[in-house]
């Protein structure tokens, strides 16, 4: 029997946060969020520091990422490679990530190793041992990472977009740093970074899994209560430059088999009251995958691109709206023009109510999925904290959707999709790109022979 389904009805949300957690603070300022979840014999933790690569100057680009990694290179209780060996011996996993507005140490262990995992974390953040030999090795690694990253077209285009909008310091730099900056980092810089930024009143610990909350609290207090509060943290450098004419930067890559592109502009911080409308709008524009406007128009109907999507890089400082994609060299310029046409249409015309309701319903229904596992719950909680919003952000967001309508989305489109405030960065053969993009905006060509 086949039934025709016309579409899911609106999803009602009752405002509850799915994950139940305990939170408390130590007297030294360390905030702790704790989830009991006995579905698997595992524990996860995320220690978030509210300082990231946005504090890096161009002179010492990469300092924050390098300093975070140095925590893994030995402590007073686990010198040298003893720490790595001890963690690996349990089967546990440790990851270090530096973002623009925060730095994270993430761990996954069997629950039987809970005490050891926290001891290792406590040792790393309170008693690291920094040596010249380890620093030189890490600097060389990071330089190699920077070079490898540079070879990835999409990463390079994103870096260029950020640089064009936020300059060559702090927020405008890639989190992993640039080679010249990495080379300049010295041991004293790492120690200074540690002193100023890796301390409990700049940190939040999210921990969850197969643990008893009371026992976990005792262990956390025992291991972290004596962690001394710190000095003032490094200041983020966020310098926004909003273009007043459409800028097009073309990286000439004559042998590229296809063309990559990114189109973007600064958005708003996550705390903004316009975030809700922007999220809905982004979903309709290109975040909704193959049902989105951009995919339907540029990939399916016009067959001008191979892939396309939009997204918002949210941040505590300034988010970035971007549209990214890939197209054949022959059709890339036309794909970009078609994207601008879709944007223009959304600035002029209200989206149909059905499309608007579908977008809202996606988020209503998808909410629960964000908290499916302990790991995803902790990740969500850490992200919300990093973005400077409260833990009830998602339920509040869904309520704010109710205050949105297609007119509000059109207002958002008019503000944030003004072509004059956008930057297009493209990588492909200049001979095929420039003729098709001439007249669209101010063109700058980098590299190669534009003749």
């Amino acid at each position, binding site marked *: 029997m*086949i*039934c025709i*389904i016309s*579409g*899911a009805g609106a*999803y009602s949300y009752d405002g509850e946060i799915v994950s139940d957690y305990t939170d408390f603070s130590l007297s030294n300022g360390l905030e702790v969020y704790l989830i009991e979840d006995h*579905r*698997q*014999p*595992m524990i996860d933790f995320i220690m978030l520091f509210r300082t990231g690569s946005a504090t890096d100057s161009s002179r010492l680009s990469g300092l924050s990422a390098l300093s975070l*990694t140095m925590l893994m290179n030995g402590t007073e209780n686990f010198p040298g*490679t003893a720490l*790595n060996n001890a963690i*690996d*011996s*349990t*089967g546990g*996993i440790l*990851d*270090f990530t530096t973002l623009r507005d925060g730095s994270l140490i993430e761990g996954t262990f*069997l629950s039987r190793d809970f005490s050891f995992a926290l001891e290792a974390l406590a040792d790393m953040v309170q008693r690291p041992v920094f040596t010249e030999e380890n620093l030189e*090795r890490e600097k*060389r*690694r990071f*330089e*190699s*990472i*920077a070079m*490898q*990253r*540079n*070879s*990835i077209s999409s*990463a390079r285009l994103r870096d260029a977009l950020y640089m064009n909008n936020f300059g060559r310091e702090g927020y405008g730099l890639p989190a992993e740093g*640039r080679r*010249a900056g990495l080379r300049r980092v010295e041991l004293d810089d790492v120690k200074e970074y540690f002193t100023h930024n890796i301390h409990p009143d700049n940190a939040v610990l999210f921990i969850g899994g197969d643990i008893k909350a009371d026992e976990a609290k005792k262990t956390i207090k025992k291991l972290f209560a004596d962690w001394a509060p710190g000095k003032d943290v490094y200041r983020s450098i966020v310098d926004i430059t909003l273009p007043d004419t459409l800028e097009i930067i073309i990286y000439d*890559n004559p042998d*590229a*088999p*296809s063309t*990559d592109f990114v189109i973007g502009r600064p958005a708003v911080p996550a705390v903004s009251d316009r975030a809700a409308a922007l999220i809905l709008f982004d979903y309709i524009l290109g975040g909704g*995958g*193959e*049902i989105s406007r951009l995919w339907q128009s540029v*990939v399916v109907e016009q067959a001008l691109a*191979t*892939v396309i999507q939009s997204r918002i890089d949210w941040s505590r400082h300034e988010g970035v709206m971007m549209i990214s994609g*890939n197209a*054949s060299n022959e059709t890339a310029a036309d794909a970009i023009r078609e994207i601008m046409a879709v944007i223009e249409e959304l600035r002029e015309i209200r989206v149909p109510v059905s499309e608007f309701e*579908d977008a809202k*319903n*996606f*988020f*209503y*229904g*998808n909410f*629960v999925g964000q908290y*499916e*596992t302990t790991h995803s719950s902790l990740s969500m909680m850490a992200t919300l904290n990093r973005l400077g919003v409260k833990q009830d952000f998602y339920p509040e967001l869904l309520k704010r959707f109710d205050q949105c309508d297609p007119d509000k989305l059109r207002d958002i489109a008019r503000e944030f999709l003004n072509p004059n405030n956008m930057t297009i960065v493209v990588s492909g053969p200049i001979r095929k790109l420039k003729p098709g993009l001439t007249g669209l905006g101010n063109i700058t060509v*980098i590299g190669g022979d534009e003749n």
Partner: protein
Amino acid sequence: MKKTGLKAFSIFLLFLLFVLTVSLSGSEIFETSLDNGLTLLIKEDHSVPLVAVRVCYHVGIKNECPGLTGITSICEAIMWQGTRAYKKGEIARIIQAGGGYTSSFTDWDVTHFYSRVPSDMLDTVLMLEADRMAGTGLTSEKLLLSKDIVRKKRLSEVESSIYGRINEEYFNLAYRAHPYGHNKYGWPDDINRINLDDLKKHFRAYFQPSNAVLVIAGDLETEAIVKRVTELFGNINSRPMEERRPISEPESIGDRRSVIVADIGVPAIIMGYRIPGISHPDYPVLNIITNILGTGTSSRIYQRMVNDEKSAMYTDGGIIMSEEPGLIYFYALLNYDSPVEDAEKQMSGEIKRIKDEMITEAELEKAKNQVVVNYYRNSRTLDDITRNLGTARFITGDVNFGKHLVNAVHHVSTEKIIQTAQKYFKNSNRIVVVISPPEAGDAYIFEEDHEEEHE
């Protein structure tokens, strides 16, 4: 530590790596078959109001003959081009409007169509999937559209991505006879040549109930779902299945090597060895060997190349889990100024060492713990569960494969490690790909690098 660049390189190899697991605790798996041969697997989990639904067809790259490479991906694409009841795009729209997500992929042995939705959408998804199985029409127009989709995916994921091309080169080198050697998007000439008759033959042979497993996990009631699945899927016709004749990979008389000149920013090396499929008794031992040599910052290759010799910025290893002949591999992204020849000797040196010297009990214990943690990490979400169950059912015949693997590794001994390493780590069984940067002046130079050189 994960960085964007490492992620890109890791993903192209690590997407090959998946762990087949089932939860060691919690509810058991319910299994039944309908009269038309469709297998149904159900796992209840009421911890969150979500369900995951997955239809797996036992067909993948291994079922593609020369001349018809990519045909399974075309079939996969066609199943999104509209059905008897839903026009093109409607399935995704309905699921997303309900708060879910949906997608599909083809791999070496199995093709998956999967969704995760709020639990009140389960019936909707079952109706959609039943119609997709029964009501996908095959027309020339849909074939053209689907071929175009596959061509674009190949352009985007293989030809425009140096990592995609390296991946393709590696597999092409590893498998001379076996179909695993070609990319899932096929060779361009084959895609161009495939006609409607080819499509109909392949589709009708493999995309049918007796070649399918329907896996459902989450907030549901088993009895009610069995009844509903029988109503929706029970009348879909099956066709007799032809028995597949497996293709073996012939032995080489020497190792297979390739040097790729490519700008990935740094040199790199991939070294792998052919191994049997996942059901072979040596598989648990090979899993342990992968961990000792390649997993984590205390692994032998990492310690040697990153910490001691400082030739690499990152190393890793993995094992392909396939129904037919697989691969164990190790790779290193080198520091920008490291000579590749030295790096190859270092990696080979560690592989030789595990053949010549007994590993320590501490190393063995570590490797076993890593298997256990990996098992749990890869069976957290409902999506993980349905993927693992569906794949395990087909390529091992054992839905509890993951649990049995964890038990099996506990019995691996240090003696068995040496024996197995000696059996498979032979030059005649080895595939090496070296990625070498272009000559100076040929590489694409980013503007910032120009500035930095002048500082």
